[in-house]
């Protein structure tokens, strides 16, 4: 990535971010695997495995029962087949449903005692040392001075919860968040320490039997993140979860629950990577967001799971259910996603606009190259009066990839004076890929306005010529044009993520021209 080598840190962007982004060059950067001794549950899925996962997480009886009920429901459900994706039958019995680093058993006293392999992993992921200590579970690490991630003179900090295969390995900045009353921890800790909140909200947005993968997740989720923002609190820093699948043949099933109480605000980032392997791996997560009155949640994802190699071997099957419930009046949820990874993506972050004047927004860039397949979009369900939703989806398809936008906009009879605007644009690079749009529009009252627009086009020859003429090579030119095409979405991302995403866009499209 030559263009970036000359880039100087611009105002507001720290050198570290630039370095990090620069390092992203070349092939799939996160393709390594860490050889760590793992503690596995036996392969396969049964009621006993569900009990075992529950036991490993030291869960109370109600949680075990909840999981078992989900497992029973899952047995009765069949895999959905309506998405425009094709993949070989998944053998659900040939998977590990629980794996965690052995070194987690005893809390290390200092970084020296931490499994160096685990530290190496964090270093490769670009997590600062102080945060590494916390993530590795070093005792007293929280008291050590935080170095944070500085940018442009102003301190910019991000609290991280890292999930390694099945378990959350550590959460940073917990103390500081506690001062503000914010609860940010792994969901297993939340089940232990805040059962009243978990019991009240878990499964209230994505019911246990919502869909095949969500039901599976409800039965076997091993860990994930939990966020509670008390009334009137503006979360002092961005919260972030980092997911990594490391072990082979291991499904990752994380569960995220975000509760924004009345008048609160939180911005949440999610990133994910996985090693390069030639067998496909399963990832089925559930994210539930509850926004009470006047609350606002911003959820940003940069999904960079291993996409499989150039011939379509391996990669992650990413079957994710993400849903936000805008319960309170004037609540607002904004989903932003940059989907560049995964062999197969099946993901529809949705908003239920229940409160009057609530707002839902969905900004998405989905890039598929080589043999990747993505079927992604959103659902905006307008139930309350004067609700607003906005969908901006940019699909980019290259190589032999298939990229589908699938979305639903539903205006219920009582959702008077509501408004939706949808824009889906697809860009095709090469003549062997596909770009598809499957929107569902259901309008049941006449005071609401629904507008849907979609276009499909290729990279414009004139634009290419203009760029080439100014000395950019073909790949750089395509990257630049695609970044321009996706600008509206990139701008919706938090600063650091936006930088990374722009670079990812270029990398994902490598080898797609010429």
């Amino acid at each position, binding site marked *: 990535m030559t263009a970036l080598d000359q880039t100087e840190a611009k105002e507001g962007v720290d050198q570290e971010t630039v370095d990090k982004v620069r390092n992203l060059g070349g092939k799939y950067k996160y393709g390594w695997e860490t050889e760590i001794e793992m503690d596995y549950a036996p392969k396969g899925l049964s009621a006993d495995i569900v009990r075992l996962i529950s036991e490993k997480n030291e869960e109370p009886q109600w949680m075990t029962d909840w999981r078992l009920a989900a497992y029973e429901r899952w047995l009765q459900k069949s895999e959905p*087949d*309506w998405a*425009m994706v*094709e993949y070989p039958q998944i053998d659900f019995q040939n998977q590990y449903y629980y794996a965690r680093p052995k070194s987690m058993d005893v809390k290390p006293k200092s970084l020296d005692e931490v499994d160096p392999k685990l530290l190496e992993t964090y270093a490769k992921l670009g997590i600062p040392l102080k945060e590494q200590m916390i993530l590795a579970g070093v005792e007293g690490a929280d008291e050590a001075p935080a170095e944070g991630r500085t940018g442009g003179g102003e301190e910019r900090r991000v609290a991280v919860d890292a999930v390694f295969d099945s378990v959350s390995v550590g959460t940073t900045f917990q103390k500081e968040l506690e001062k503000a009353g914010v609860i940010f921890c792994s969901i297993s800790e939340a089940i232990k320490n805040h059962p009243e909140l978990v019991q009240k909200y878990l499964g209230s947005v994505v019911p246990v039997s919502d869909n095949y993968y969500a039901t599976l997740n409800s039965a076997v989720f091993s860990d994930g993140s939990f966020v509670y923002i008390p009334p009137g609190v503006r979360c002092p820093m961005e919260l972030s979860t980092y997911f990594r699948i490391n072990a082979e043949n291991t499904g990752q099933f994380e569960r995220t629950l975000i509760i924004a109480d009345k008048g609160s605000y939180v911005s949440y980032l999610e990133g994910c990577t996985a090693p390069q392997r030639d067998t496909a791996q399963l990832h089925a997560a559930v994210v539930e967001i509850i926004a009470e009155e006047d609350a606002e949640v911003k959820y940003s994802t940069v999904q960079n799971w291993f996409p499989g190699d150039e011939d379509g071997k391996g990669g992650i099957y990413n079957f994710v259910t993400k849903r936000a419930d805008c319960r309170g009046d004037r609540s607002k949820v904004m989903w932003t996603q940059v989907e560049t990874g995964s062999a197969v993506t099946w993901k529809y972050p949705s908003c239920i606009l229940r409160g009057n004047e609530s707002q839902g927004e969905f900004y998405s860039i989905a890039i598929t190259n080589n043999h990747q397949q993505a079927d992604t979009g959103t659902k905006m369900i307008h139930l309350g009066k004067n609700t607003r939703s906005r969908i901006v989806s940019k699909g980019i398809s290259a190589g032999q990839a*298939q990229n589908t936008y699938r979305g639903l906009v539903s*205006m219920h*009879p009582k959702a*008077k004076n509501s408004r939706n605007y949808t824009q889906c644009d*697809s860009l*095709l*690079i*090469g*003549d*062997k*890929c*596909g*770009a*598809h*749009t*499957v*929107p*569902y*529009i*259901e*309008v*049941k*009252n*006449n*005071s*609401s*306005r*629904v*507008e*849907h*627009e*979609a*276009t*499909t*086009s*290729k990279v414009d020859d004139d634009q290419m010529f203009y760029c080439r003429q100014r000395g950019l090579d073909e790949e750089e030119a395509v990257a630049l044009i695609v970044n321009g095409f996706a600008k509206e979405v990139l701008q919706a991302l938090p600063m650091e993520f936006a930088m990374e995403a722009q670079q990812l866009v270029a990398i994902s499209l490598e080898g797609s021209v010429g």
Partner: protein
Amino acid sequence: MAMLKPKTPEPRALDLAETRISAMTLPEGGWAEPARREALERVRKTGLPISRDEYWKYTKPDTLTAVEAPAASVFDGKEPPVFDQFDRLKIVFVDGVFDAEQSDDLSLEGIEIERLAESQADIHWAKEVYGRLEARGQSLVQRPLAALNTAFATDGVLIRVTGKPSKPVSLFYVHEVETSDAMLHHVVKVEEGAEVTVLEAGPAAARFNQCMEVEVADRATFRHIRAQGRDHERRAATHLFGRLGEESTFKSFTLTANGVLTRNEAVLELTGDNAVAHVAGACMGDGDFHHDDTVFVTHDAVNCESRQVFKKVLRNGAVGVFQGKILVEPGAQKTDGYQISQSLLLDGDSVFEAKPELEIYADDVACSHGSTSGAIDDEALFYLRSRGIPEAEAQNYLTLAFLAEAVQEIDDADLQEAIVERISQWLFRRMAT
């Protein structure tokens, strides 16, 4: 190429098919028999539509698949049939039965017209088309009602166009019996360089299952203007299959007013380079009205153009459905695909459901679709009222303007005028209520 997966049929769908089939007799003999038998197999394999089918999500198929057609009273609008003032070759079917008395002589220069019921030879030009286009149209989305039609329809017209006939062929459908159940299957073949206009009008029957297969050869032109009958309680499932050759033109427009259930399917395939296909529809629904346009356009050649323009005006709980698709096959470069579906909801009870799809496997294309739904623009209404036009009248003008884009798809100015006249009559008749 398309990625829609074949579905294992539900036992209920198969049962429905068997029940329906056992209540009918398969016509025997003649050139059409093999096509009929194949179609029967298709129905047996897929079953009949049920609500769980992806493309029957928004329209209940039960009254269309039932053995007995639900009764529909005959509407006496006392208005002259829509194309009456035009010089045309008229072919009349009463409740699906050919009426020689009311029909014109079937001979006209540049065109051969024959009735399916009377065409018993073993060799016939229509053999290349009958059931063939319908079968091709099943490959991505199943249309069992069309296959059922191919198998069991005993009559219809076979039109072969070799020149440029002086007047349009007009199919006029009369509904007389309250419980009539009609099935007609038409075949049109427009030979190279030939041109024809086909008009269709009338309610046809209490329940009408219609199929029209149109083969448009290179440089040929097919125009189709249809006004579906006004009977309030009638039900119809129509299927228009078209295959277009090089530099050919296909233009179809449908006006639907009233009818408790209408499902109009159009399945077009552009197989020759530089072909042009336009399908348009305007519908007006009041009260117990359910209208469904399901359109599927496949681009399988270079530099073709397709347009889908559908407008729906709905009031008093009427339901409008649009399911449209532009499929661009690999290699169909320079495709220009356009699709618009819009609804105007005149009150809070009406419903619009749309699924405008794009499925694209070629990169050098410009495809777009738009779909909107909303009420009459208050500002425009205010503008007209401030100039002294009463509210109801102003509303009608705005409604006419809303439907214009679809109506303008009719090339012939006089025919366009006749359709606009129909729409205004409908609107102003309801103004008082």
